């Protein structure tokens, strides 16, 4: 499975992990720990589909927040674009359900914007790739 993330995702994670007191410091570990034990097919079949067209899906994944010991329900919602044709998973947005940056849901407008930016970055080949290695992924956010 090829893994990518968008600039929106990067900005949001950077905002979440900026201050330890906000309680989102484990966000990256929680994402990696989810991806590490999943297959693309498992992710696609096991998570709510916000949108779907042929091999492309916009999925909403529930993640725990291990830092705050919050369950999947109260943890994060990770929004991803999966494409089973090219076996790729792109992280496009993440929001917490609890705490300072809590968000209830994402709107249709948000979906449209996220997909639009994903498409632009895909065309411009500016999507950033990463692998399953936690230190490498963490490093991307520490630069």
């Amino acid at each position, binding site marked *: 499975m090829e893994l990518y993330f968008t600039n929106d995702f990067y900005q949001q994670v950077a905002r979440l992990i900026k201050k330890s007191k906000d309680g989102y410091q484990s966000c990256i570990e929680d994402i990696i720990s989810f991806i590490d034990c999943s297959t693309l097919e498992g992710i696609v*079949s096991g998570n*709510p589909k916000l*949108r779907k067209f042929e091999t492309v899906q916009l999925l909403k994944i529930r993640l725990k927040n291990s830092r705050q010991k919050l369950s999947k*329900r109260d943890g994060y919602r990770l929004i991803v674009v999966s494409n089973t044709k090219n076996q790729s998973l792109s992280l496009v947005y993440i929001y917490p*359900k609890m705490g300072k940056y809590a968000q*209830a849901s994402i709107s*249709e407008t948000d979906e*449209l914007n996220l997909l639009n930016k994903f*498409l632009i970055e*895909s065309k411009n080949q500016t999507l950033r790739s990463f692998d399953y290695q936690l230190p490498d992924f963490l490093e991307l956010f520490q630069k």
Partner: protein
Amino acid sequence: MTAIAEQIKKYNLSTEKLSRSSSKALSDDEKTDLFLDKINQVRTPIDEIRVLLESINERLWANFNVMGQDEIDMLIDTAPGMISKSKLLIQHFNTQKIFHFIENCLTEFSREIDHFDEIIQDLKKRYKPSPMSDEISKLLREIASL
């Protein structure tokens, strides 16, 4: 008394409790979460129902965006009495009928739990594709063609 009403009575999951829990304004996500939590208290795991509803979900999503997995999960947890009827619908697949079936289930449940009305309204809204849905579909088509 419906199967759901019996379950609610059996496990003392009263309408009052649900209404009190949902007294503040809730987002769609929160409503579904709250509902799932409540329903989980009366859940009897039935793999067959899960498989069936997942099948409904796949078929629904293959055709139009009516429901999210949350609502499907909700039905998995609440509609065991409807299993025969839904099996029949799957055999004679017709998305419109399935939508009406789901809507009817929710309407029936709403007699027990008043805030389901909001969920039904939300479903109805989503059933009618908005202009934005068309734009999103175009984007997805373009992404798929990359």
